[in-house]
């Protein structure tokens, strides 16, 4: 850890204008997170065009602050109206809403804010230590290791919460294929341009992201029946009592570790972290019977875990250029759009950006704690915005944001086409995030494979001479087949145990 760099980063992060922008992003993030259907991924994608006018440091700090706050914001509506603002808050509703029905909404909101902030701050501290260490390790990587790492990152898509393994992998592969559109960099041969010169430079990530996250969700929302949600009395969040805090301290500590670890794994993120955080909270609780009926630990567990995943997800994003989640894929695209090269070189070439980002994320976590306490009541009211006005606004921002990138109508068409594709993918059980992760990793996969093959004289056996690459390939196999193999073994063991019992009976 570079203390001098950290001190300089703090100096930069304390700039009043940057603090103001981070505060604005935190307020917007909590709001977006609280609005059902709007996720922090979509918000970062929509905000991305605005950030292009900012300095790289400010742009990334703003997007990261929005990410942290958006993850917390989902808990507000999960507790108050039993509708998680975003998937990572889904498990918070299991106990948050029953608590709200019992008149304990303020207690639930308070615990959600505190647990989220602790999880977020813990993971940022881990990020400060782990990201530079991982970057130092990555200095030893050559093209074969990067290829194996990118393949491992893509294989991790298999575990993304929604959809199933095959469909998630297919989405990732489709993203890699989209990345091949345009001129092939080493030979200058055009691929999949279909005669459109606008495609020779490839497909811009940003309109694809806006389309696939925002426009597909708009079409999805058009199919959602008009629900009348039961609202509970909105009260202000209140600080957890000492008893509550004592009861939840171990749960929060455990979830901090779980969330950060899950976040660090490429392509995993808040939703899985919160599910595991909830399950573990229940498993270790002295009162597991209370879960599902309004247990305070049932809020602390998932909230600490999903926010801990934010800092964790930034580790591979910054150190390796491999996105840790859908939102960090957008942040990675923002880095690239700003002309910043993610990966180990970032730590030597632009340490200011990194350390300012660390501080901005820490500050964002403290800010959303304050904003959460001061404004939970207000945010809950704002979520009353009718969907008939909310979703047209999302599309308007999508159109103008896509056009503004390069004042090109082609980008607007790309945004729309990918919005329609994303809608049909969702309809058929595909998760859309893998497409974006594949699109971002596609260039790395092809370039590193090409370079590796040159190094190995066109023989794939050359990979066997690289232990680190082999380790990543082994991890790839585990991530692809670990879950079904484990399930098959468990099933076989159960059958074997059941066999003698049946025979005895």
């Amino acid at each position, binding site marked *: 850890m570079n203390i001098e760099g950290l001190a300089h980063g703090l100096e930069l992060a304390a700039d009043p204008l940057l603090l103001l922008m981070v505060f604005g992003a935190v307020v917007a993030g909590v709001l977006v997170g609280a609005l059902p259907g709007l996720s922090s*991924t979509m918000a970062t994608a929509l905000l991305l065009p605005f950030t292009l*006018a900012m300095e790289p440091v400010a742009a990334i700090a703003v997007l990261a602050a929005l990410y942290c706050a958006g993850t917390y914001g989902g808990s507000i509506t999960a507790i108050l109206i039993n509708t998680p603002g975003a998937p990572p808050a889904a498990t918070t509703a299991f106990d948050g809403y029953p608590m709200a029905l019992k008149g304990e909404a303020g207690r639930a909101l308070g615990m959600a804010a505190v647990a989220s902030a602790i999880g977020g701050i813990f993971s940022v501290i881990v990020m400060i230590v782990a990201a530079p260490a991982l970057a130092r390790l990555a200095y030893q990587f050559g093209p074969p290791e990067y290829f194996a790492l990118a393949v491992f990152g893509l294989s991790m898509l298999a575990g993304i919460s929604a*959809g199933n393994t095959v469909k998630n992998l*297919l989405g990732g592969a489709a993203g890699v294929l989209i990345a*091949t559109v345009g001129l092939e960099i080493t030979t200058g041969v055009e691929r999949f341009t279909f005669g459109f010169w606008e495609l020779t430079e490839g497909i811009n990530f940003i309109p694809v992201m806006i389309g696939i996250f925002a426009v597909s969700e708009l079409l999805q929302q058009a*199919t959602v029946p*008009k629900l009348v949600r039961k609202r509970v009395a909105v009260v202000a969040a209140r600080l957890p009592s000492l008893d509550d805090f004592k009861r939840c301290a171990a749960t929060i500590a455990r979830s901090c570790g779980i969330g950060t670890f899950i976040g660090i794994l490429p392509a995993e993120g808040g939703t899985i972290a919160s599910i595991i955080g909830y399950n573990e909270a229940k498993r270790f609780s002295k009162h597991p019977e209370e879960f599902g009926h309004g247990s305070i630990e049932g809020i602390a567990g998932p909230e600490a875990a999903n926010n801990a995943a934010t800092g964790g997800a930034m580790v591979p994003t910054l150190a390796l250029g491999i996105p840790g989640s*859908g939102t960090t894929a957008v942040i990675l695209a923002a880095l690239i759009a700003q002309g910043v090269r993610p990966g180990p070189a970032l730590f030597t070439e632009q340490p200011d950006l990194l350390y300012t980002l660390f501080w901005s994320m820490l500050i964002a976590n403290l800010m959303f704690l304050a904003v959460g306490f001061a404004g939970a009541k207000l945010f809950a009211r704002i979520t009353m915005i009718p969907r008939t006005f909310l979703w047209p606004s999302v599309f308007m921002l999508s159109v103008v944001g896509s056009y503004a990138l390069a004042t090109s109508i082609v980008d607007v068409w790309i945004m729309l086409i990918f919005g329609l594709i994303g809608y049909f993918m*969702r309809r058929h059980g595909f998760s859309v995030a893998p497409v974006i992760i594949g699109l971002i990793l596609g260039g790395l996969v092809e370039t590193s494979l090409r370079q590796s093959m040159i190094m190995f004289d066109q023989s794939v056996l050359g990979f066997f001479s690289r232990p680190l690459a082999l380790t990543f390939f082994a991890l790839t196999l585990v991530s692809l087949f670990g879950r079904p193999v484990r399930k098959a073994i468990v099933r076989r063991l159960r059958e074997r145990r059941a066999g003698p019992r049946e025979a005895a009976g």
Partner: protein
Amino acid sequence: MAGDSAGDDRAAADEGGRVSPFFPPRGDVGVALVILAVCAVLYAVTLTFNDAPPSLARGMQPRVFPQLVLGLIAFLGLIILVQAGPVERRARSTDWRTVILTALACIGCVVIFEHVGVIITLFLFGLLLPLLWGERRLGPVAIYAVVFPLLIWGLFRGILGVHFPGPIQNLLSG
């Protein structure tokens, strides 16, 4: 994952058939066939790519990588096809009329964007979509349709300095 949106889970839940963490649900035959057909077409397209001189290609022609990826996609599509069972008929609450009209409104918005400019386009969209989605309070709709597009235009023009084509914005920009 953090990147998921609520719709993913809903869409996954919408799909009929058995729940398996690894294999696709039933009723995906059509999806698999579309994937395989698209792969076949794109594979044919890769055959039309120019060959690079050997000194540049260094053993890997530009068509090879896309072909490898298409092969992988086709393989995954085949798994979906093999694993898919008969389509299970399940009642879905999808309001297709609204979906199609929304999609058409979006397409129309992009079509006219370049010709009539951003403000008129967004005004029309802001007027049309709320009404299409069942909003009946005409006053708020009218105010929204005027104010929100101007707000967006001002934001992008003022902060980002983006120039938008069209008669009204030219007038407003002076």
